């Protein structure tokens, strides 16, 4: 308990107390609107204080080492990894909470009760922060469960809708499977180390035979949360139906707790065998490629963004995989580049994914639909929204000069490093992965040019009556966009932070592979691009003044009556790419071709379903349902039967526990 009450810790504790006290107004403020305003303001203050305390911690100080602080009898631990994730959570939570001011207003106008949503949102934020600082396995599991359940309760805000039922049920099932798996994981760890503290978990070399089980349990449990490819099926079901604030937070932050779990597992199991690295690498590259390919086939903007999370989790996983391989081969440079890329991409993805989700929320609220085929021309209604969304899109596609490029650049360099250090057949395999990553980049470009152009550009496919954006929308989107720009143009600071995190408990030896890269050149090149583009733009405007500029209707091959419906659609834009992996995307097209001299009205539709969901999860569910229906006779209305069952189970458990000892 020594030093518990120094200034940094006081701020840290105060932040949590204030955040939790956002729940107090529920007791005495009856008006929905007043309650939500007070609660949200208190929460925001708590978050800002929390961020300040995180920023004043050793992670952001000039010292090279991070203090590994243990508080409250070792129940709370502030180490590099924990602080970094705490920083991500708070950084994203602030804009989403600001966004709440305008977003929930929309629900209040509909006279929908939102008290329960505000409560579950607050609990969600606090419990997510607890996950990354918990050092006690039970505290970790409890926070995990609270986080999962509060997200579920928040998700069912519009519970009268059929799709909300379906999506939130997927989420609930996935959450329960995760908890089940990580319970076993932690109990095994406890069994081996006789401790409940995460800081004590080091699977010693004598107990190596349990390592594969531990690794696989962790990768399944945390992998479902993160959304790696075979386990991703719940993500595109759950994220679209949640209220926008929540889907931004789910996609930006909560799935990252899965990444946090995997990185923690690495610390427990370090040194890790090389096959773990390959498993992660292969699953990740498949997640990345098919995640973005599925995204390309979607018409629902939020579902599309959810699939993009699968892609980005894949990219993070690729970084982790490189780190594992580096760790197995004891190459510090590789560890630093792999984990560094993964951590920075985690931060980056949290930023641009919440930016895009919040942006999509503004649009779908105004238009009353999430179907992008009904959108268009929004740039003429809200220019700055289009600019912010464009920044997020360029960033998520990994294109310079924004932050997505920086982390992908590190991961590419990791591959180069691996090829250089591990000769033999490694260059060939690494190059295959590089090409895979480049392919993902190309697909992301196709996907984000698609949604940007269909949503914002051209003319309105469906008439927009009025488009309302509030100052809160712009503040939250602006903060996130600025972060995208800052990390892109001046990555040096953030690289330093990431490097420090990796320095504390990830690498076998120091390496300057990450920090020593030529970050200044990137800054200079990007600044030069920006500067020359601005100058050239003004020169262009000047030349146009001299030789004239006017606007005229789009050229229609001589046809005059062009309607908005004649524009290129999202499905036709993506069609050529979607028909390639038709079976995997479960991509269906229904085309009616018009015939005869007086053709009737024709129709076209295309849609894609999830392969894992349709071919694996649903059949499995049907199979289980069939088996369970066999024992349906046990389901009685009389409560005494159930008490009897409970007694039998407890007896069985008791006998097993007795024999075990």
């Amino acid at each position, binding site marked *: 308990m020594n030093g518990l009450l120094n200034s940094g810790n006081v701020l840290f504790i105060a932040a949590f107390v204030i955040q939790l006290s956002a729940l107090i107004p529920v007791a005495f403020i009856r008006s929905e609107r007043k309650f939500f305003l007070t609660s949200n303001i208190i929460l925001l203050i708590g978050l800002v204080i929390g961020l300040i305390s995180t920023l004043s911690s050793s992670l952001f100080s000039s010292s090279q080492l991070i203090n590994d602080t243990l508080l409250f009898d070792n129940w709370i631990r502030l180490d590099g990894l924990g602080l970094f994730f705490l920083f991500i959570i708070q950084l994203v939570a602030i804009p989403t909470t600001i966004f709440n001011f305008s977003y929930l207003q929309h629900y209040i106008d509909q006279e929908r009760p939102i008290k329960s949503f505000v409560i579950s949102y607050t609990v969600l934020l606090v419990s997510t922060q607890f996950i990354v600082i918990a050092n006690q396995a039970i505290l970790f599991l409890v926070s995990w469960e609270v986080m999962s359940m509060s997200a579920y309760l928040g998700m069912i805000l519009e519970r009268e809708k059929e799709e909300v039922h379906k999506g939130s049920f997927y989420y609930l099932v996935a959450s329960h499977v995760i908890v089940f798996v990580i319970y076993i994981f932690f109990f095994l760890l406890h069994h081996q180390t006789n401790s409940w503290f995460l800081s004590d978990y080091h699977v010693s070399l004598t107990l190596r035979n349990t390592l594969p089980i531990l690794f696989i349990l962790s990768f399944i449990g945390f992998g479902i949360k993160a959304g790696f490819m075979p386990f991703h099926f719940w993500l595109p079901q759950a994220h679209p139906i949640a209220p926008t604030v929540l889907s931004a937070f789910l996609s930006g932050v909560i799935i990252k707790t899965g990444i946090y779990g995997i990185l923690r597992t690495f610390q427990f199991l370090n040194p890790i065998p090389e096959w773990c690295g390959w498993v992660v690498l292969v699953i990740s590259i498949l997640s990345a490629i098919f995640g973005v390919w599925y995204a390309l086939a979607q018409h629902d903007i939020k579902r599309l963004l959810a699939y993009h999370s699968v892609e980005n989790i894949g990219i993070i996983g690729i970084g982790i995989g490189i780190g594992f391989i580096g760790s197995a081969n004891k190459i510090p440079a590789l560890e630093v580049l792999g984990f560094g890329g993964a951590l920075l991409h985690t931060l980056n993805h949290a930023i641009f994914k919440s930016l895009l989700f919040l942006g999509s929320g503004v649009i779908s609220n105004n238009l009353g639909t999430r179907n992008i085929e009904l959108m268009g021309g929004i*740039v*003429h209604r809200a*220019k700055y929204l*289009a*600019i912010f969304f464009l920044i997020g899109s*360029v960033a998520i596609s990994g*294109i310079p000069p924004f932050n997505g490029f920086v982390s*992908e*650049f590190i991961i*590419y*360099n990791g591959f*180069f490093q691996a090829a*250089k250090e591990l000769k033999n*057949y490694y*260059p*060939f395999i690494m*190059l295959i992965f*590089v*090409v895979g990553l*480049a*392919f993902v*980049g*190309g*697909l992301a*470009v*196709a996907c984000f*040019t698609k949604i*940007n*152009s269909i949503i*914002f*550009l*051209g*003319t309105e496919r469906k008439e927009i009556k009025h488009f309302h954006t509030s100052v809160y929308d712009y503040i939250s989107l602006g903060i996130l966009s600025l972060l995208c720009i800052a990390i892109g143009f001046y990555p040096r600071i953030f690289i330093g932070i990431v490097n420090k995190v990796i320095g504390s408990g990830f690498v076998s030896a120091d390496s300057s592979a990450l920090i020593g*890269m*030529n970050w200044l*050149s990137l800054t200079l090149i990007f600044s030069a*691009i920006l500067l*020359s*583009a601005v100058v*050239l*733009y003004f020169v*262009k405007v000047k*030349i*146009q003044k001299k*030789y*004239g*500029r*006017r*606007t005229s*209707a*789009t*050229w229609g*091959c001589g046809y005059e009556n*062009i309607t908005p419906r004649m*524009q*290129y659609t999202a499905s*036709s*834009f*993506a069609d050529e*790419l979607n028909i390639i992996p038709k079976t995997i995307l479960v991509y269906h097209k229904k085309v009616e071709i018009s015939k005869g001299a007086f053709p009737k009205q024709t129709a076209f539709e295309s849609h894609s379903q999830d392969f894992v969901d349709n071919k694996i999860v649903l059949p499995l569910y049907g199979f289980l349902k069939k088996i369970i229906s066999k024992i349906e006779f046990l389901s009685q209305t009389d409560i005494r039967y159930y008490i009897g069952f409970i007694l039998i189970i407890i007896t069985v458990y008791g006998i097993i526990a007795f024999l075990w000892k």
Partner: protein
Amino acid sequence: MEIEILQGIISLLIILGFSPLFAGLINKLKAVLTGRIGAPVWQPYYDLKRLFKKETINATVSSFVSRISPVINFVTVAVAATMLPIGFWKPLISFNGDIILFAYILGLARFIQILAAMDIGSSFEGMGAAREATFALFAEPIFFFTLGSVAFISGLSSIYDIYYSIQLNNISYIVFIVICSISAFLLAVTECSRMPVDDPNTHLELTMIHEVMILDNSGIDLFLYQYSGYIKLFIYAILEISFFYPFSAQSYLVGVMIFVIGSFILALTLATVETITSRFKMKNIPQYLLFATAIGILNLLIYTFTK
């Protein structure tokens, strides 16, 4: 140090200055091969001058994207050009990992150009944009299987160093490099919208890829698009020619001669290919690109296992 910067600037100016000439050369050679007199090699310069002085007409529905797109296109292509060596002169931008920046900075140009095409709200442009996005996707792997595989073999990640590291002392390595240069040629054809992938001279919007995307532009906007198109063509030509620098034995003069002669031979090859082939059907283009990728994979695989 100063001399290197000077050389870099000169290289950039060479690329910016002579890229229209290269395009003019291809057109002239093509004309000669098909038995026409053809436009003078300086024609692209006249075209640019004419466009520069024309009035700009923007589509009514277009937004800020159409205004900034030509500018960003030009700047990014010019920045990509500063990463390439002329002879053995060190380019202005050269650092470890610039091969990735090179690929991605051209990606920025593509991203904004696709958006600008969709900005017009016409289905012609939309079609071109969709095709550009599709074919670019398949072209990306070829780049990494050509220049990238040389990089992975040598363990270097800067374009200048990669070319500098090529040494022709081992027969299997020579074969490897020659095949790399062949797939680089296939890549150049795709990226610069030449035949047999795209036909820059077609007169029907439905059959175009790149040209249709800039259909509704005029004046200075079109000037910038055309100019960046010429530069891009020259960039890919240089990527191809640079494979032959090892023959120069690292003397500047021979290097420059290889550059000049190489450009001419490449122009002749492109003109010949365009004379004797016709454009592929759209649906066959991915096959062509995958074929080029397969060459790259096989090449690297064979080299890795025969080493």
